[in-house]
């Protein structure tokens, strides 16, 4: 390992083309393990807080979404690109029983280091595969703090 850190993050979640879910917050936790060269491995858990919404005056309770992801980061300087795969718990009120769905995510970010601490800003897209060729997509605007042990 070239580095080892932990972090927490939050801010905003924007469902994309989902009539039955409104934008809300998110929060999560992650680890950062430096591998070789510019590669960093990042396991994480993210809770998406979709908001209830209304369509034609009909109230819709928002889907519940918790995503577990394993990402690779390619870093250069403070910047990084990232992509990962994982699984999300998705429960749609009034829909089929909740279950785990394969989830992909990709995005980028920037770390502002200050000693062992770094402020981390990262927009990402989460793609939760709900059926063959079907998904629910959420844009995650993540900002948080990482602490590096070394």
């Amino acid at each position, binding site marked *: 390992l070239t580095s080892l850190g932990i972090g927490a993050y939050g801010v905003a979640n924007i469902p*994309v083309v989902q009539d039955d879910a409104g934008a809300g917050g998110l929060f999560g936790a992650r680890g950062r393990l430096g591998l070789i060269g510019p590669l960093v491995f990042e396991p994480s858990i993210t809770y998406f807080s979709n908001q209830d919404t209304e369509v034609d005056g009909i109230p819709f309770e928002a889907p519940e979404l918790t995503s577990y992801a394993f990402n690779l980061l390619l870093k250069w300087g403070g910047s990084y690109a990232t992509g990962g*795969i994982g699984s999300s718990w998705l429960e749609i009120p009034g829909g089929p029983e909740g279950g785990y769905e394969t989830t*992909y995510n990709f995005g980028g970010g920037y770390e502002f280091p200050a000693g062992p601490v770094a402020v981390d800003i990262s927009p990402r897209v989460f793609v939760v595969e709900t059926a063959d060729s079907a*998904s629910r997509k959420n844009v995650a605007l993540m900002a948080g703090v990482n602490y590096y042990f070394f």
Partner: protein
Amino acid sequence: MRKILNPGSGVALAALGLVAAISGCLTSGTEVFTYEMEDINVSATGFTRTPVDLTENDTFNDHVDEIRLIDRVGFTCNIVNPGSPTSVSIYFSKENIPNDADVPTQATPLFTNLAAPSGTRTIGYDESLTLIQNFEALQEVIESGQFVIYSQPTDPFALTIADPVLVITFTVGL
């Protein structure tokens, strides 16, 4: 000679794999549409049949060949019962079942023995989600676009299911 893949190439390959994996499902969206039906006058004797043709709805019709998932199904209505308290059962099937005696065994219950007190009982969308049985079978008939609803009161009293509206959430190709 052993060739070592540099980390940058490895990430690029992984990124390509990721794009390939998700490209099929990126072009989908989840939409809601409502289908308003005529009042259903439930006969005191036998099942009342109501054909449903979702292709009459523009949103459904626009995506009928690109339906990938029926996410949730609910309804709203008013059950108007001018007589004594009773209950009502509703079944559905893809094809019409002409013989009343076959309906309970060949059709699928949407809900059974729903209380219909004297007067009007309003069922909102959230409550309907708790009433619906056999969601998977309902997904199938909705995806097909056309099906038949059978309604019958438990007791021999006529009642009306007024202003019935189906509320359907589906994920479709864009």
